């Protein structure tokens, strides 16, 4: 709680600064803005000549150059949807999969993975992965066999790896399904510790390792699995804090893992924490420990921008630079946000989703971490859980 009061103080300072100073002056206080300014100038220059190139480029589909949002859809019955925000026209089209294919995507659209020309959409409650052309959204294939409560997918080479809870009340049947992308079938399953959630690949060494965060499903877990991509063998489990729920890749072989800690209603509340994982030697380093009662989630970051990290606590967005000092917090944006996604392009854009009452259309708000201001917002489907950039 001590920390919480400190946070509020800092926040107030930031606000008052902003109120009294000119916007550009306040920007100057932020270290990362130096880089941004150059980039901004660069964009103006390149942007002015790039429009000519576009004319020659054949459009890949209606859903190119925009933002795709996965909307889980209502609880119980119903279908999840995908929304497309067109960056050029600022127009949002909802239900794009249904619009193109004239059928329902399925119940609880959990996540999506974009690679090549394809998008792999993981539909949790319908136990399926729907593969579409990411630019036209025409359906390519549906994988249904061999999945049980699928959550997230990552793709490396000709293989897809999908985390599955199995029966959510059974902690002994969780697995990672391995998909052969040439035939779009589950060809192998790797039993893993319970509650596998987010899944990523290590970039270094030709993506030789697949890393799974075990958030714990309906329960609480505290490990990360490392799977050998080629042999499908579970190489090791690395212990981290309780409830690893999100990650930020800081280098080709290093990850920051946000651990939310067990909530108070678990009966054995634990602290949230951030761990750094070195995938060269599978060692961990505790980078930050939160006060008891604080349960962070949705870690995103930009290592090139002075180790900027952003995450959610109780629906509020917290911005930090690295872990050097406990006072590295620069801003809080209050809200009741559901998830965060950072777009690290020329400009940093933070996409924060707001699910509202979870039974009506949600909203995406886009913030500039550089100027600490809201840039725009747009309405999407019910319970927007994931934001993906279809550039």
């Amino acid at each position, binding site marked *: 709680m001590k920390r919480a009061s400190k946070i509020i103080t800092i926040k107030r300072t930031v606000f008052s600064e902003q109120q009294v100073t000119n916007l550009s002056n306040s920007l100057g206080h932020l270290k990362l803005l130096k880089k941004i300014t150059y980039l901004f100038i660069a964009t103006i220059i390149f942007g002015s000549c790039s429009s000519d190139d576009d004319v020659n480029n054949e459009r890949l589909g209606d859903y190119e150059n925009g933002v795709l949002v996965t909307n889980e859809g*209502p609880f*119980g*019955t119903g279908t999840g949807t995908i929304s497309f925000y067109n960056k050029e026209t600022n127009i949002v089209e909802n239900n794009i999969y249904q619009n193109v294919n004239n059928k329902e995507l399925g119940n*609880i659209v959990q996540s999506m993975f974009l690679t090549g020309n394809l998008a792999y959409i993981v539909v949790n409650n319908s136990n399926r992965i729907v593969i579409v052309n990411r630019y036209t959204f025409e359906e390519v294939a549906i994988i249904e066999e061999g999945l049980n409560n699928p959550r997230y997918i990552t793709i490396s080479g000709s293989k897809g790896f999908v985390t599955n809870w199995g029966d959510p*009340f059974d902690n002994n049947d969780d697995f990672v399904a391995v998909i052969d992308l040439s035939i779009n079938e589950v060809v192998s399953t790797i039993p893993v510790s319970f509650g596998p959630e987010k899944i990523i690949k290590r970039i270094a060494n030709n993506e030789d390792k697949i890393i799974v965060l075990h958030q714990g499903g309906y329960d609480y877990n505290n490990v990360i699995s490392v799977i050998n991509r080629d042999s499908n063998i579970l190489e090791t489990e690395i212990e981290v804090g309780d409830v690893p729920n999100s990650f930020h890749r800081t280098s080709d072989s290093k990850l920051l893992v946000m651990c939310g800690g067990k*909530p108070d209603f678990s009966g054995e509340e634990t602290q949230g924490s951030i761990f750094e994982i070195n995938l060269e030697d599978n060692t961990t380093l505790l980078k930050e420990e939160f006060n008891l009662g604080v349960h962070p989630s949705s870690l995103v970051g930009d290592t090139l921008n002075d180790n900027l990290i952003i995450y959610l606590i*109780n629906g509020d967005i917290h911005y930090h630079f690295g872990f050097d000092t406990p006072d590295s917090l620069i801003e809080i944006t209050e809200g*009741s946000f559901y998830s965060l996604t950072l777009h690290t392009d020329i400009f940093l854009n933070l996409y924060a989703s707001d699910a509202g009452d979870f039974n009506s*259309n949600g909203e995406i708000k886009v913030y500039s971490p550089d100027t600490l201001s809201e840039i725009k917002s747009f309405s999407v489907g019910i319970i927007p859980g994931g934001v993906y950039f279809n550039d």
Partner: protein
Amino acid sequence: MKNLFVFISSFLLLCATPLYAQLDSIQQLDEVIINDIRLKDYAEGYKLTNISDTLIKMNSASLTDVLRYNSTIYFKENGYGMVSSASFRGTNASQTAVIWNGISINSNLTGQTDFNTISPTSFSDITIRSGGGSTQYGSGAVGGSIHLNNAISFKKINQNNIRLQYGSFSIFEGNVKTIQSNERMYFDLGVDFISSENDYKYIGLDQKNENGEFSRLNVSANTGFKFKKSALTWNTNYFISDRNFSGSITAPSSDNYKDVSTRNLVSWKTRESKMVSTIKGAHLFERYRYFPDKNKSLFFEGKSNTFLGDYQLDYKINNKLKISSILNYSYIKADGSNVSDNERNTLAAIFLLNHQVTEKLSYGVNLRQEFLNDFDNPFLFAIDSKYEATAWYNLKLNASKNYRVPTFNDLYWDVGGNSALEPETSYQAEIGNIFHWKDFQIDINGFYIASKDLIKWQPSDSGLWMPENISETENYGLEVSGNYFINFKEHLISVNANYSYTSATDKEKDKQLIYVPFHKITGLLNYNFKQFSGYYQILYNGKVFTTTDNNGIVEAYSVSNFGLEYQIKNKLLPIKLGIKINNIFDIYYENVAYRPMPNRNIQTFINFKF
């Protein structure tokens, strides 16, 4: 021939009985005892609709179907035969009280009654009481109440009835009932069983209703003894149901749900000149078990026991003024996988008055004060009046304050329950107009309901779902019910119709509440000729919203059923045969989003009476 005429005319009478007919059961120990005496004695300004036995048998599969086709009440059914909740005048699922022989049987855990866990054929009388009735019936009687009664009659009867039904989706239904009674003693026993594979095809889709099997067994027995100045009655009911919860278009399911309930009520009634006193004791037990995977042994359960004691003193001051005082004590104990062992004591004092001011004008006053509750003990009132303006026009008025207490799930659910919840409260007013000319009657009712502190589960900032007394709603609407019959030679034709317009607004969002249709229409055309009878049922259900921003909708639909029945004349063993085609036009419709309802299907029955 004569029997048939009696049968038909009594049916028509039931359809067409003026609803203001009153049973004065207080003043003497009648031949017929209904334990829910307040229903008719202190409700002059309320609209009461009786559902006749004939109507019940047309839709005997579930109480949902009976009420859906014969009233303005809207049902949200989670796939055919699955969990079904009522929205009465746009109120929420916990604001329709179901009253069994005078006792509320809404679940202490969920606050509502699943209308697919009530066997409609096990009662002698089903009556819909529109409007607030919390002063008399307690928590949940906000939009209205459904009264399920087992009448005990001290007449000489020896009647046995067996009805067997078989139809599409392997539906099998059996109803066996025996009544044995004389001037001193009464006994009836009813056994109702139904099972269905419920695996209908989804029209226009390459899918069928998977995992939708259900079965249900209900045993009810009612006993009565009549003495010189007193009578003892015992109503008992045992119910068990086993359902898989069906999947939907977008998601498969492997869930299973098992319900058990038992109800027992003993009532001792004595008469002393102008007074009737009634002592009642009752025990109710309910238990559900939810299996997330039917093939595994893991389940979550909740159960509750309710003990009730009730003393009622009815006093007739003179021919025009009668009063009733009731002391009602209840002790509820509930626990389960997600609800720790908790209990609740409630003491309620109720005062009822009915005054016939003139021959044409009467009014009633009802008061209720509760004690012992942990939350704010409500004081409730209701006033009602009836004015018989002309031979063809009656006016009814009522206004009341009603409430719904937080359920054990709301208060103690682990995790999320909020023990600081207060009761939901609602104020309402109603005007009823009754017009009747010869064989034609029409009721027009307008209502207004303002509710606040409605309990709503919503996500907190930490992502945990918790209930809060947060919502406010405003409902208003219009109900029109009409019936008409014509009779020429041996042909009898009767028509019943209901229309309702319901506006139910979430005040915060200024949007119509989800799953409340603006428009609902039901219609029944019944034709009788000699031993033949045929009927046509139609239900129009206006579109409903599925999301709180009113972006998601379930389209309006109208579905029709058609039935034919033939009575074989045989003095020793009269047999009736019938066939019914549900959804004759084979239309695709959903009651809840992404849950298609059955396609065209056929049910047949044979009925023996001896």
